Every structure is written in structure tokens, then in C-alpha cells.
């Protein structure tokens, strides 16, 4: 299971272990952690929620995209759900490739795509309130190959 949604803390090494291969000279990982300050506002904790079955499928899709585009790449992604405190690990992406430039690029692709197509949401909790966060890319995130909502409205 290289693509998982986890209710428990993520063990980084166990995600890395999934992509070790004799042909790989490079493994990159991206570890998304809960940051205390966003736009100067102090986060107390976060709640992540997922449409779990679809989220796993979309993570698998990202893995396939990477393995098609970067030759010899192997990918594993685990995303946490539930309550996370500051510095807790929300997501771990591990990518191995024969050559290092690919390992960085493919990994970057994974996190950008997660923020576009994987049905996971976070609710930020501050001292003075809470809010579901969306549209982090500051654009509407429609999946590839689907028409925009506006185009479908009569």
C-alpha cells in the first residue's frame, strides 16, 4: 500500500522504505508540517478530514502520473487525518529515481497535485475562531480534463 490515509502519526522512515530500489540513486521526501503562523495569525491546531476512499484513488493517480513522466520513479504518499498540533506531520511524500534532478521535480509535482485534486480538507483553529481552509493555490482547482463550472451553467 504505497498510498495511504492514516489516522495515526506517520512514520517517515516507513514511507521512505516503500520506495527504496537498487536502481535508485536518489530519494527525496517532502514532509508537510503544521506551521504555527500563517499570514501572521497563530494556529492552535488543525483538523484534517478526507473523503478517504477517493483520496487514496487520487493519490494513486498522482503516483501513476509520476511513474509515467519520470522514468524509473517509485512513489509513496501517506496523508494524515484527524487533529494535528504545531510541528506534527500532515503528509509525507517519498520519491526515488535513478537520478537526483528527477527526484526533486517528481516530488514537487506530487505536492502540487495533492493541493489540486486530492479530497482532503483542513480546518484551522485559532484563539478567536476556526475555519475550513480552501483554495490554497488561490485559483479554482478543477481536475484535468473537466470543464469549468462556469462553462456548464446555462
Amino acid at each position, binding site marked *: 500500500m504505497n498510498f495511504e490515509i492514516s489516522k495515526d502519526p506517520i512514520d517517515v522512515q516507513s514511507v521512505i522504505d516503500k520506495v527504496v530500489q537498487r536502481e535508485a540513486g536518489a530519494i527525496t521526501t517532502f514532509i*508537510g508540517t503544521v506551521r504555527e503562523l500563517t499570514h501572521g495569525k497563530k494556529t492552535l491546531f488543525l483538523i*484534517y*478530514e*478526507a*473523503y478517504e*476512499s*477517493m*483520496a487514496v*484513488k487520487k493519490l494513486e493517480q498522482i503516483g501513476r502520473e509520476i511513474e509515467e513522466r519520470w522514468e524509473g520513479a517509485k512513489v509513496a504518499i501517506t*496523508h494524515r487525518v484527524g487533529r494535528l498540533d504545531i510541528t506534527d506531520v*500532515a*503528509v509525507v511524500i517519498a520519491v526515488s529515481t535513478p537520478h537526483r534532478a528527477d527526484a526533486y521535480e517528481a516530488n514537487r509535482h506530487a*505536492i502540487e497535485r*495533492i*493541493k*489540486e*485534486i*486530492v*479530497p*482532503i*480538507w*483542513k*480546518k484551522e483553529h485559532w484563539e478567536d475562531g476556526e475555519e*475550513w*481552509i*480552501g*483554495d*490554497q493555490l488561490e485559483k*479554482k*482547482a*478543477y*481536475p484535468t480534463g*473537466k*470543464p469549468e*463550472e462556469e462553462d*456548464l*451553467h446555462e
Partner: protein
Amino acid sequence: MNKILFFAHLKDTVGEESIRIDVSGKSVAEVKSYLSDKYQFQKFDTVMTAVNEEFSSDDEIIKAGDEIAFIPPVSGG
């Protein structure tokens, strides 16, 4: 019968994770319009729809047994 799933702020508005209603034969756009009126959803124009765990277009027609999910802009990672 169809299961309809809500997430994030939509779930908070509905007060439930899912409801069961029969919307077979209707388009995704019709279902969205119906539920948006019923629950007075905020920011519903940026919400995407998934049918059976795959993103769908607004003109897709729902079949009996389809699982429909409303997907607000995601914020994982």
C-alpha cells in the same frame, strides 16, 4: 436510492456527513441546484462533484446506486 456525501463546511452546514435520497435520472447540476436551495450552501460555485469517487461534470446523469460527493476546494498537504 443515492448516498450523498458532504465534507468540510458543507458537512457543518448540513449537520450530517451524508444523506440518502433518490436522485437517479437527474443531472449533477440539478442535484447541486436542489441541495443548494435546500441547505442554503455558501460558496457553492467553487464546489466540485464526484460520482462514485471520480470527478464528474455538471451534465453527468445520476444512476440508481451512484454515490455522489460534493468536494469543496481541497486543502490537503
